[in-house]
């Protein structure tokens, strides 16, 4: 991934391009619907799902309220178990720490477990600049990396690609791909497996993130489906984990809740295939934990917005989002796309760019995301809160002020309605200026001769 999101236009522009791509829309529709239905099926099986959801929310809220205490507890537990803990306030600091740790081993190659935190900080690019090559080992991340592409989904980063496209990428970019490679899923997986096996056996350094960290025991937890994570976590001599500070859970027992919530919400599975847990350095490994802030304490300070830190990166909100389904992840210009990205990205990065300011508006507020969120993040409420903080275009500010003025007195509204009624025949089919956005694809309703309030006045509520 040699590209960055810097300088990307605002969401509506990116989205306009994406909705024109019929192949993309077809791929997305098929994939999101498959996972969406699978999730609904396995969530529906659990009679106590609402209770689990409330428990997940409560545990995360409690942890976030006491984050300072639990982080110290975690550091002590990891250190006692032979690990080294590093604190990184931002992306640059985290990348510096990781690069120095890798260099200290004398290696120039690392294997990676799929991790959102390392993508957020652009670790692969930072390592590349230091002469270190990072190899993604998750199948979808491998596809994205080989294709010099961006991930477009949190859970299935190559969701925008179909298997014919994946075959092309493998033949083109994977030197050891068999020449007769077909686009059968089994053949593609086998080619990737052989390609990666050699990397696992050679690697001396691995980099991961973590789904959860347990303050009580110093345990890190990684959930994955392919077994590549297990290889990375166990084979190399040095393991470096970069984890956001909000990934904490107080006790081992709390996993009981999250190991039910996460697989069912993300992959639609009852149980996660590969769950790896480790505390500190095991069996002669060097273990380093880099705790990443990168804007998180700022989010924590916002009373409404802080609930975004409960997120366990399951992607259920992406898979039900009608906007995401039509635009895909790239339009969001962030490693966090979809509804959660629309509230997380502007909070983590701030709203200084046109793109970041446009993200809270990339939603029809339909509420489907909130309904499926396993930790009950009220995404629509946070979106509305962020919209209030965004700088609005001048024309819109004037329009809203005018509407506000009219609505503050009912006589003004009545006068505006009478004026509209008189002008009703003069309203063009296609409106000019910004309102053409409505009439490009939709007719405007016929303006009535008489408003409801005028009718009520004239007929005394329909009695005359």
């Amino acid at each position, binding site marked *: 991934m040699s590209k960055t999101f810097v300088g990307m236009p605002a*969401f*509506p522009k990116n*989205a*306009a391009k994406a*909705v024109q791509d019929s192949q993309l829309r077809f791929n997305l529709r098929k994939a999101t619907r498959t996972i969406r239905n699978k999730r609904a099926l396995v969530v529906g099986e659990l009679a106590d799902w609402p209770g689990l959801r409330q428990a997940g929310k409560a545990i995360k809220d409690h942890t976030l309220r006491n984050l300072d205490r639990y982080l110290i507890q975690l550091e002590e537990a990891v250190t006692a178990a032979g690990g080294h803990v590093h604190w990184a306030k931002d992306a640059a600091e985290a990348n510096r720490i990781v690069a120095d740790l890798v260099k200290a081993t004398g290696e120039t190659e690392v294997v990676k477990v799929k991790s959102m935190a390392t993508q957020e900080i652009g670790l692969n690019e930072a390592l590349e600049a230091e002469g270190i090559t990072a190899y993604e080992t998750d199948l979808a991340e491998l596809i994205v990396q080989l294709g010099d592409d961006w991930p477009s989904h949190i859970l299935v980063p190559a969701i925008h690609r179909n298997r014919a496209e994946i075959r092309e990428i493998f033949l083109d970019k994977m030197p050891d791909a068999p020449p007769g490679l077909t686009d059968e899923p089994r053949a593609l997986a086998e080619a990737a497996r052989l390609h990666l096996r050699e990397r696992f056996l050679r690697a001396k350094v691995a980099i991961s993130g973590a789904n959860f960290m347990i303050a009580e025991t110093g345990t890190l937890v990684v959930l994955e489906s392919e077994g590549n994570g297990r290889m990375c976590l166990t084979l190399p001599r040095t393991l470096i984990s970069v984890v956001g500070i909000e990934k904490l859970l107080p006790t081992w027992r709390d996993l009981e809740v999250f190991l039910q919530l996460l697989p069912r919400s993300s992959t639609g599975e009852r149980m996660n295939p590969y769950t790896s847990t480790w505390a500190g350095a095991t069996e002669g490994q060097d273990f380093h934990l880099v705790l990443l802030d990168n804007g998180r304490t700022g989010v924590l300070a916002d009373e409404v917005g802080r609930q975004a830190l409960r997120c366990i990166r399951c992607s259920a909100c992406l898979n039900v989002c*009608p*906007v995401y389904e*039509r*635009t895909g992840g790239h339009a969001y210009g962030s490693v966090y796309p979809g509804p959660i990205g629309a509230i997380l990205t502007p909070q983590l990065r701030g709203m200084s760019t046109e793109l970041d300011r446009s993200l*809270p*508006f*990339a*939603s*029809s*507020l*339909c*509420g*489907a995301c*909130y*309904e499926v969120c396993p930790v009950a993040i009220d995404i629509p409420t946070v979106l*509305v809160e962020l*919209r*209030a*903080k*965004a700088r*609005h275009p001048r024309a*819109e500010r004037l329009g*809203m*002020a005018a*509407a*506000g003025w009219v*609505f*503050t*007195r*009912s006589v003004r*509204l009545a006068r*505006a*309605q009478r004026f*509209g009624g008189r002008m009703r025949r003069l309203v063009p089919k296609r409106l000019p200026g*910004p*309102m053409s*956005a*409505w009439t*490009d*694809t*939709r*007719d*405007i*309703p016929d*303006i*009535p001769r008489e*408003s*409801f*309030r*005028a*009718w*009520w*006045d004239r007929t005394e*509520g*329909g009695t005359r």
Partner: protein
Amino acid sequence: MRVALFITCVNDTLFPGTGQAVVTLLRRLGVDVDFPPAQTCCGQMHVNTGYPKEGGRLARQFMDVFAGYEAVVIPSGSCAAMVREQYPRLIGAAIGNAPDTSCDPKVYELSEFLVDVLGVVDVGAYFPHWVTYHPTCHSLRGLRLGDRPRKLLENVRGLELVPLPGAEECCGFGGTFAVKNKDVSAAMCADKVGNVLSTGAEVLCAADNSCLMHIGGTLRRQKSGIRVMHLAEILATTEGGR
């Protein structure tokens, strides 16, 4: 019971027929309807577009206008959801049937008022047409209207209710979203329209005219011949006309 009608700015200005249908329907069911003339807008557009100051002013105005009433009936799922779900947080308003409050006024979307307060599902309507129903997001996931509208429609004589595929999916209106993100909005509506057409229904019904304005505007642009009607307009229709 003193029942006030909050007509909503969209209905008042663009769809007076819906308001008249609500009045006809409620009178037929023996309800004394009042229309406080000082009412204007609930403030949803302002709040949801990021103007809480202006929206909050309109919310306080709403609370002043409807202070003396036990019940306020709103023929719009999203405006009812705005008042009940957002006012408590926005201006600390005590809405009678919002969670954790118990004073007047209580705010009902029309179908809630009919089914829960009046206890009727058969309102004596006659509408001999094929109808499909779009539940709208704020009615479905905000107010949780559930099967109330369906029960009301099923009891309309002559009416054939045709299930709408993908009914729970957003139509892409979303207030100013329809203009700010017009391409995504239109793409969402294209799929909604496709589903509506696949039902073979003559009429698309919903409990919210803003969504219907969006879907209906697209249907009309495509010259589909399918009419859109607010739930109240169907329920107000009887055998001898209204």
